[in-house]
């Protein structure tokens, strides 16, 4: 018998073992513990927002068997990321894989530590797509789906490649019935913001809106078929101060077309907070630009 199957078996077990020291248990809710990833040696742990139900006295189970305490540093529900600070140092931070060579069909292991030991399920990278917006409006630098089973307690743990390098953080809460990994770049961006500000800032205008069809002539002129009709403009809001009225139809913001609510959500990013942006509207059949200073969502 050739050794190929035995080699595969050893390689997979080896990948799990290599990743193990950077995976912790996160006890932040009443029922089943979840998993977390060691972000830095001085105790920053990344986990899934939806498994963190307490702010303080979060138990972190380390790979060496010790349990230490952590508290919540910040969370972002839109990307399902939470950051914890544990009272410990000398941890082994996760080794991240570059995404450049990642392809659909590559082997992937979902790992978790809901108990004492690290556990693994095997699958492949099922789908990969650049630039994805979560249903809650969070921005992912890419969409990474796997068919590896998310075993109970695996949320917050990593998805790793065949070498045990970390590809992202497991989340079963972003899309129903689909196992996703929050990709590395997104984690880096959001964790940085959460460590500094405790939350991800989102832009805010102070309007309610719905998509409507634009009149024929304007469709050709603007190159889009729909815009967002403002149903209300909140008093003293950035929209009102900028001069937007109920009945205006937003067709672009900061040079980017706005056709649906998703478009607007995607454009109201944290980095636009306190910035003046051109809001292109249709008012009384005319297309005009109104300058609005984007506010911050509370």
């Amino acid at each position, binding site marked *: 018998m050739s050794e190929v199957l035995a080699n595969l078996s050893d390689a997979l*077990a080896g990948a799990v073992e290599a990743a193990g020291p950077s995976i912790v248990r996160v006890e932040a809710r009443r029922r089943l513990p979840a998993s977390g990833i060691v972000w830095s040696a001085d105790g920053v742990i990344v986990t899934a927002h939806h498994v963190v139900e307490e702010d303080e006295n979060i138990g972190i189970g380390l790979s060496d068997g010790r349990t230490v305490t952590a508290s919540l540093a910040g969370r972002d529900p839109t990307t399902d990321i939470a950051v914890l600070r544990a009272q410990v140092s000398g941890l082994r931070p996760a080794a991240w894989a570059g995404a450049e060579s990642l392809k659909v069909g590559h082997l992937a292991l979902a790992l978790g530590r809901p108990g004492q030991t690290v556990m693994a*399920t095997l699958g492949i990278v099922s789908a990969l797509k650049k630039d994805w917006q979560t249903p809650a409006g969070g921005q992912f630098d890419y969409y990474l789906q796997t068919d590896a089973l998310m075993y109970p307690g695996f949320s917050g743990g990593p998805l790793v490649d065949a070498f045990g390098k970390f590809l992202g953080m497991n989340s079963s809460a972003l899309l129903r019935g689909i196992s996703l990994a929050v990709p590395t770049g997104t984690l880096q961006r959001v964790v940085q913001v959460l460590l500094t500000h405790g939350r991800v800032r989102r832009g805010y205008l102070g309007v309610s809106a719905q998509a409507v069809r634009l009149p024929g002539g304007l469709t050709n002129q603007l190159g889009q078929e729909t815009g967002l009709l403002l149903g209300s403009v909140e008093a003293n809001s950035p929209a009102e101060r900028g001069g937007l009225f109920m009945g205006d139809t937003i067709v672009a913001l900061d040079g980017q077309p706005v056709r649906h609510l998703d478009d607007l959500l995607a454009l109201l990013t944290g980095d636009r907070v306190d910035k003046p942006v051109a809001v292109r509207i249709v008012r009384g059949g005319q297309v005009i630009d109104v300058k609005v200073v984007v506010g911050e969502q509370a």
Partner: protein
Amino acid sequence: MVGELSVDLANVVENVHRSLVQVRNGRRGAGAGTIWHERGLIVTNAHVVGRGPVRVELPDGRVLPAQIMAQDPERDLAALRVDAENLPTIQLTDSRAVRPGQWVTAVGHPFGVQGAATSGIVIGMGKEWPEMPRTRHDWLVVGLHMRPGHSGGPLVDAHGRLVGINTMINGPDVGLAIPVHVVVEFLKQALL
């Protein structure tokens, strides 16, 4: 390389078949069993044996009455004896050294399909499992597609060595097996 992988897997299953039996407790093909000792000792699940009487079909086609030597519902194990000699056995491995990620294959008679195999990796081993009451014994949890009829059959590693005895299905993608070290404990206590 991928071709060799397939050949290896096929060889593992073929070798395992030599030690795989069918256990019948009055209904047709109640489950599987694993030949443990060449002088007729067969291990299967307690739930496969039930109250008996049982008969065992050997790989060579002989159907023999089996004596129930011991049964332990807590570990879900049963030891049977048939009147036969020189039966092929599977080499045991140290199941305490099993690592998550290791490749394993479960063989049995799922839905009555004789000798069918399912393969995947070890998810973990231990006593505490989500959504299961805490037990006194270790369980091997494996990511493969166990189905009714795999019970009592062998779970082997990438070398074809026995790692455990298939015992329970935990959803379509997860199976449970009794590790070899738990079977050894059971046999030591049961067969004095």
